[in-house]
């Protein structure tokens, strides 16, 4: 008999139908991956198992966990099962722990709430659980507070809480989405090991096909609250039938059609750039600390080239981006666009600035919600000495909007009327409107669902060809950098550790860090 069996589960919240006739099952020792884009209902499926649904949610159908009918049990009995029979790991480790209680206390609570254990006994077992998630006692005593740990370490604490009582089912809701790729690989290894050791069943929720493909025994693909496809992994990738899952797989491996039109002359030249920050003083009279965010970085970006800049969070790539954009002055070195310095004296050089633009990651935070689209995309005109007016302005707006695949009439709308993908198109239109030569793409597709991401990548390739643009593509996502760039730089701790043609870097990495990064990145099985 299955450990978890969901049959015909439907869920409504208010007037909205969230889930429709969802069925899936998990056996002991089995890892089942649930895949879907945002809004597919994958997380709500997980919360239905826990019966931790938002107020006003109504679930129908059947959810059987180890013989318990979760939809019919009273709250008191559900509490007895949660944490004991089923544990859960969440997406955002930074906020998943109570900031004012020690990690030992929080792990021990799982034990104390379910068993008649003494406080010291519970603490001892909390220690064991933390040891099992590879947080050894010498570096991670029970008295640590969450704010003293990194994101990956906090996620380990959450996992320790979930497995402290050796539940028979573990639910992981996007457990690595908020983490860097090397940390992600470690957490996934840990989860696999725990599942194997305890013979647990695991329900793994993710938007990332590759992450799930790496570890699941069975895969369930969801869309709009329905299961569209399920099957064993990796065989399923060879026999997808539903058009949605086929397009999802295609989008995940999508490589836009593009050739390099690189000229030899460098457009952007970065030489020995150093940027240090002064930390706030820790003591009243002590010397303030310093952080070297960028430590002597040099590279060239050729005209017409698409250059990737890869690195994990905190490696200094954002600081470098801001320095290139002329938002921050560097302490040492120089940044030249076509031979002109980005900073002249201590002021940003407007003549240089108008030749480059940027697209940011967050399609929701990138626009002033109070302005209409035309005003939003015309903002860069501020850089021109004689910005176009009247008909010339209208024509520029229409051209920018149509070239990113939107209608010219969209200029009268407010930003909230657009989806995430459309917003990113508007962000690109804003960058295009003053006809720059270089566009910096700062994690520009990282927040998008795979299918939308594939469309935006196609658009970028197309625009690059049509307008002869050069791109600096900053991302933590190796799979994206691989398909959109000609050359790439690998950055670690403020330094560029490796650079070269993208294919060479990926197929034959030289630096140990590059090798580690590439090994950590999850791959889709090679089935076409």
């Amino acid at each position, binding site marked *: 008999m299955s450990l978890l069996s969901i049959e015909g589960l439907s869920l409504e919240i208010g007037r909205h139908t969230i889930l429709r006739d969802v069925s899936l099952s998990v056996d002991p020792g089995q890892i089942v991956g649930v895949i879907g884009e945002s809004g597919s209902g994958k997380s709500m499926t997980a919360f239905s198992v826990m019966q*931790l649904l938002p107020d006003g949610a109504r679930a129908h159908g059947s959810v059987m966990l180890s013989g318990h009918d979760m939809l019919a049990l009273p709250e008191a009995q559900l509490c007895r099962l949660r944490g004991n029979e089923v544990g859960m790991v969440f997406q955002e480790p930074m906020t998943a722990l109570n900031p004012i209680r020690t990690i030992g206390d929080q792990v021990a609570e799982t034990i104390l709430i379910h068993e008649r254990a003494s406080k010291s006994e519970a603490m001892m077992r909390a220690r064991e659980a933390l040891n099992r998630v590879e947080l050894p006692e010498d570096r991670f005593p029970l008295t640590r507070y969450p704010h003293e740990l990194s994101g990956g370490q906090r996620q380990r604490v959450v996992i320790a809480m979930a497995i402290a009582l050796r539940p028979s089912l573990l639910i992981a809701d996007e457990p690595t989405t908020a983490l860097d790729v090397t940390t992600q690989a470690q957490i996934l290894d840990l989860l696999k090991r725990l599942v194997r050791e305890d013979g647990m069943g695991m329900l793994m929720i993710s938007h990332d096909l590759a992450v799930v493909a790496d570890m699941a025994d069975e895969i369930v693909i969801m869309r709009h609250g329905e299961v569209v496809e399920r099957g064993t992994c990796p065989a399923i990738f060879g026999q997808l039938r539903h058009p949605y899952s086929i397009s999802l797989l295609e989008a995940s491996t999508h490589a836009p059609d593009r050739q390099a039109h690189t000229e030899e002359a460098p457009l952007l030249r970065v030489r020995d750039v150093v940027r240090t920050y002064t930390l706030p003083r820790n003591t009243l009279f002590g010397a303030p600390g310093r952080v070297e965010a960028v430590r002597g970085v040099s590279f060239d970006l050729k005209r017409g080239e698409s250059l990737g800049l890869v690195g994990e969070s905190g490696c200094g790539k954002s600081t470098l981006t801001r320095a290139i954009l002329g938002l921050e002055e560097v302490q040492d070195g120089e940044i030249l666009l076509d031979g002109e310095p980005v900073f002249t004296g201590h002021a940003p050089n407007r003549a240089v600035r108008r030749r480059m633009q940027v697209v940011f990651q967050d399609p929701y935070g990138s626009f002033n919600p109070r302005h209409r689209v035309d005003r939003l995309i015309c903002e860069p005109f501020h850089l021109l000495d004689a910005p176009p007016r009247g008909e010339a302005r209208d024509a520029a707006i229409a051209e920018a909007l149509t070239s990113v695949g939107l209608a010219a009439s969209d200029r009268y709308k407010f930003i909230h009327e657009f989806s995430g993908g459309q917003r990113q198109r508007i962000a690109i239109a804003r960058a295009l409107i003053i006809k720059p030569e270089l566009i910096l793409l700062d994690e520009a597709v990282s927040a998008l669902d795979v299918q939308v991401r594939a469309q935006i990548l196609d658009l970028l390739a197309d625009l690059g060809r049509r307008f002869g643009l050069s791109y600096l593509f900053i991302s933590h996502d190796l799979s994206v950098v691989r398909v959109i760039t000609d050359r790439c730089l690998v950055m670690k701790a403020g330094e560029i550790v490796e650079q070269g043609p993208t294919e060479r870097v990926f197929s034959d990495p030289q630096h140990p860090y590059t090798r580690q990064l590439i090994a950590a990145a999850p791959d889709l099985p090679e089935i076409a």
Partner: protein
Amino acid sequence: MLRYTLTRLLSLAISLAVASVVIFLAIEILPGDPAAFMLGVNAQEDTLAALRDQLGLNGTLWERYVSWVGGMLTGDFGTSYTYRTPVAGMIADRLWISLPLAIYALLLSTLIAFPAGIWAASRRGSAADVGVMGTTQLGVAIPNFWFAMLLVVVFAINLQWFSAGGFPGWDEGFWLSIKSLTLPAIALALPQASILARVMRSALLDTLSEDFVRTARAKGLSRRQALWRHALRNALIPVLTIIGLQFSFLLAGGIIIENVFYLPGLGRLIFQAISARDMIVVESVVMLLVFAVILVNFLVEIAYALVDPRLRHRA
């Protein structure tokens, strides 16, 4: 924690120093010569000069400031211009009414607000929640001196449970004094309790929607357990801030309530002093009140650090 406390102490000292300068200058720029005011219009020039000398009004601004602050540090607040008695003694007498009144009101307010706020938050949307929110909405809107007058009508004039005003003095018995402070304390506490209950409720609702509360629920804690063990302590920080602000408000807000109940507290003293241009008394009372506010802020910040370990490591 030690470094945190020391930093806070330092900022307490700086605030006090700045506040004392501001108060001193504010009083200095006031029109009118206290000596002339005390002696009346017919005073002789030499008597005036003698009195100015006696009152310490003749030095430079800086000398007078130093002697004022120096005096306060050694417990000498100077001599009242009108009563010719030490200010320290006058203030001490009045403080023994105003301070107990503020503490009494704060206790009442907290004792009402905490259960009400927690109750409303834990039953969000229920009749209990709607009832608490409606009552507090009224409580926030009611002017406290008017509420005090209503209390007098009901409990002093009609029911005759309490006297309508006055204060017997602590020598006449503890409970008798407490009894005479009860109506003023209730009048002060009700609007404050309403604000505090609303803050408590909204802070709790905020923390209850935090991820870590969901984590706690996933461990098997019931709603109630998650609220008491995880949400409550986290919700205390905004609540502590409000309690700190309220204490100073209660101490000063007593001024009007003291008027309603004819209580001889600091409020009455400051009114008398202002109308008599007895600026040394005004100066000292204001400084004392500011000192109380800054001290309470300091204690609140120490309390933050006790609640939140993240602060202990910060300087």
